[in-house]
């Protein structure tokens, strides 16, 4: 019985959201308000139990991890911005967060998104690895390597604004913009696929799980 009630509520809310495609209406507004309210409540409760109780309270009072008090104090200082007169204090924990995260990200991004990506772009064009003999790579791989090397180069040329985009340089920039557009197109295609998948999931819920019309 509880499951049936859940299905009916789910169907009611799903159709409420979809009804916006026709036009804005009270059913949609009600559903949207329920969604926003439940999301906010859920996140508040989840983070309260996970962070304040699970990490801080149990950590300090059960396990004796007193270093967590430093984080708690910084957290409290962050709330000082609610009082305009002493709001400046909140900049201290904020600077700590910005500094720590910058340091962490600098290393991660430089290693994963710069060094390793550059390395994988500078591949031998006609062989699988640097020490392999020439032309041992498959035709598909050679084309792929050429496309990546050419695409990266022309893409970079497009973003080089210190020289006017004219002549051979302009031609390379034009190829670069085509490569960028193809990338955006592929990304858009994937986005359409993703959004359609969500719609498919909801429609399957309505016609399959709720109405039981799918065999």
């Amino acid at each position: 019985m509880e499951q049936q009630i859940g299905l009916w509520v789910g169907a009611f809310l799903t159709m409420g959201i979809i009804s916006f495609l026709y036009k804005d209406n009270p059913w949609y507004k009600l559903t949207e308000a329920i969604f926003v309210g439940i999301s906010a409540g859920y996140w508040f409760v989840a983070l309260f139990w996970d962070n304040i109780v699970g990490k801080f309270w149990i950590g300090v009072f059960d396990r004796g991890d007193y270093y967590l008090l430093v984080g708690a104090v910084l957290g409290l200082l962050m709330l000082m911005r609610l009082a305009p007169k002493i709001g400046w204090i909140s900049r201290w924990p904020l600077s700590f967060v910005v500094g720590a995260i910058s340091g962490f990200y600098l290393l991660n991004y430089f290693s994963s998104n710069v060094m390793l990506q550059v390395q994988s772009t500078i591949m031998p064009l006609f062989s699988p690895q640097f020490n392999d003999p020439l032309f041992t790579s498959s035709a598909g791989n050679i084309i792929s390597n050429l496309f990546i090397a050419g695409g990266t180069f022309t893409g970079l040329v497009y973003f080089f604004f210190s020289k006017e985009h004219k002549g051979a340089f302009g031609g390379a920039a034009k190829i670069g913009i085509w490569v960028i557009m193809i990338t955006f197109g592929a990304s858009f295609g994937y986005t359409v696929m993703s959004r359609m998948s969500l719609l498919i999931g909801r429609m399957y819920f309505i016609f399959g799980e709720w109405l039981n019309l799918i065999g």
Partner: protein
Amino acid sequence: MLKQILVYALILALSLIGYFVITEPIILGPTASMVIIILIALVLLYILVRTIMGSFVGRRTVFTFVAIAVILPFFMTVDQPIKVSPEVQQLYDAVMALRPGSKVLVSFDYDPPSAPELQPMAESFFALCIERDLKIIIMGLWPQGPQQADLAMQTILREEAFAGKSWKYGTDYVNLGFQSGNEFVIQRMGGEIGSMFHNDFYGTPYDSLPLVRNIKNFSNIDFSFNLSAGYPGSVEWVQVAVDRYGLKMGAGNTAVQAPQMYPYLRAGQLTGLLGGLNGAAEFEKVTGRKAKGTRFMVSQSFSHVVVIAFIIIGNAAFFLGEKRRKKPEGETS
């Protein structure tokens, strides 16, 4: 207002008819399916011709066609050939290369809205792991991730194929639950997993779980699979667990996120990638377990054809509109 109430009443009536009157599933045979496909194609062609002649359709027509393209394939008996791509094959091969008893860490970094894409991947991956007798350690950087993992595991364990398997919680698989802290959780896990997960999803202490009792950090994990719908997700796992700690990892992503992951795949930072519903269907094909991913792909393909058709129609409308605007006043018909 009266019109709105009437529309609501109509939707309610249709829902009640669907729920109480139609008790048998609707199945359209191959002939009926083909007739419907041809009819839809003809109507789309008619819309294109109308557009070329200067009569444009409204956005609600587009919505209706997309809805038809998504819903109708559920009732049709149409099969779609699925070709397994190298990145999916790579993930499958990596799992198949693991010895029975190997420990696989699966992080569920998504919530119910992304379930249509990622849940089929999770189920297929669990099925393959159970079949191969791999030990599964579940966790999540998103609060609802471990619940999704639980659902996937229960679905698989209910399947007839695994009825004979005595798959036990604690020794064969564990669910460590959610941990807040995003990529810093991964960073700490690199040092000591137990420092981030004192208890599992059900409150059992980490050290009381036989499967993970002796697992200190990533060096004790043989393979990792990340299901991600955004931040924190596969990118963070690659940056910290793979590049810093050398964990071998495959990923399953929503289609929106997949293009972002391909550079990592090419650079060898990822061992296999499942991108969107397509990736889920391909993984089902390679594992030989046809499920929702394969089924949903027919709807996916139909809707893509409709979207492409409307892109063509939209472009026709745009360029014809441009042409008309460029014509001098006197020349317009």
